[in-house]
């Protein structure tokens, strides 16, 4: 059974930026793309468990703040060393100005 969980307000995240969201002992990263779309992934880099919310969003890429490893945050695909393992992604929807993510 999957639940939609309110993560933040839509305006809480700047365009082309990322925000941390903690829920039920887990941590997620919520993204707002340059095209004003929203996405969600696991919050920690698969390389060394650093919070991606401190990283840099460039187009559809999130770069880890520790070692500059890169992921496509829309698909979760690892896109540059030193990351080799993909990120898990989560469905996102907007509802009444809020960002909701579906946590499996």
């Amino acid at each position: 059974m999957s639940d939609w969980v309110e993560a933040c307000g839509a305006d809480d995240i700047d365009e082309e930026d990322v925000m941390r969201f903690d829920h039920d002992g887990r941590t997620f990263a919520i993204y707002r793309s340059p095209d004003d779309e929203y996405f969600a992934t696991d919050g920690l880099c698969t390389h060394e468990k650093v919070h991606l919310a401190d990283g840099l969003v460039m187009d559809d890429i999130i770069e880890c703040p520790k070692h500059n490893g890169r992921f496509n945050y829309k698909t979760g695909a690892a896109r540059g060393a030193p990351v080799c393992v993909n990120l898990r992604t989560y469905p996102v929807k907007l509802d009444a100005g809020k960002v909701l993510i579906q946590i499996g």
Partner: protein
Amino acid sequence: MEATLSAMPSRRDYSLLGRDAKRAVETGLAAAEWYHTDVPRKQMKELMQRSDGPAIRDTIIWLSALVLSGAGGAWFWGTWWCVPFFFVYGVLYGSSTDSRWHECGHGTAFRTQWMNDAVYQIACFMIMRNPVTWRWSHTRHHTDTIIVGRDPEIAVMRPPDLLRVVLNFFGIVDAWHAMTDMVRNAAGNISPAEKTFIPEQEQPKAIRIARIWIAIYAATIALAIYSGSFLPLMLVGLPRLYGAWHHVMTGLLQHGGLAENVIDHRLNSRTVHMNPISRFIYWNMNYHVEHHMFPMVPYHALPRLHELIKHDLPAPTPSILAGYREMVPAFLRQLRNEDYFLKRELPPTAKPYREEFHNDNDAVAAAAE
């Protein structure tokens, strides 16, 4: 957790597979959470922004100067007039590539990734660092900076081997190791130490690049023999020796004489004010505390980052000469007492070191001996 500066009863074991490597993992020093100065997200985002402009400009200047000085050296080959040209060429080949390799390896120099990759490959060849091996060793260097047994890039281990340090100003030890590693990798051999930080799927790439490089050096040597002249080797290979001095001079200052086994870059890294030419060659890596604390910030933004967080950092060392005036005596003292180190003093505006991690009573006592 016992992450301290304590004087240790026995010699350090810098091997990546040795006693101190195991101890670092057991005590939580490996892959630890490091201190960061608080910087508002908005300002950090501005500092992290990527741009192609500064690195394209600097790369055009660098490559143009490289070609012109190399051409001048070749033109005047056989006369004393070639010396100043090769002096410049050597530094651009054997020292500028240290910072180009580094910045492009982080992926921060250019916004466009293929530009980072292209300059990275060229610089790695010139500085004789396998682009696969060193990408991963540098990742470890940032995870476990100057943690004994974990960091594969500790330039001066204690007690310091000063003969090795001096020889490396001419690239002698490093280039020898680089060549033997290249031959070993080309033979398909990845060492046990390399296997600790290079993922298995990346290891064939390290072998492939080593074979390509051997082919290039073999062609250069063949050309030198065919032409009966050292000139081809003066342009490819040897500049790693006669031009190494600048990158060794600046590189030793990064961590030399400072603390080991701490998780605060303010204690184990050094920011040094330098002249504009050295900063161009070094691509602003003189802001080394800032770089380690925030490796996402491109080299051209490091001076701005420095201004923003300097209230929380030790005072920068005012010059290269001042750096050597404090570092060399520390090295000499470490010959007698390897637990001695230079402790960076923080300004009153800084957040204090976390004494639970950096309780240095024993080390201070050792330093006072």
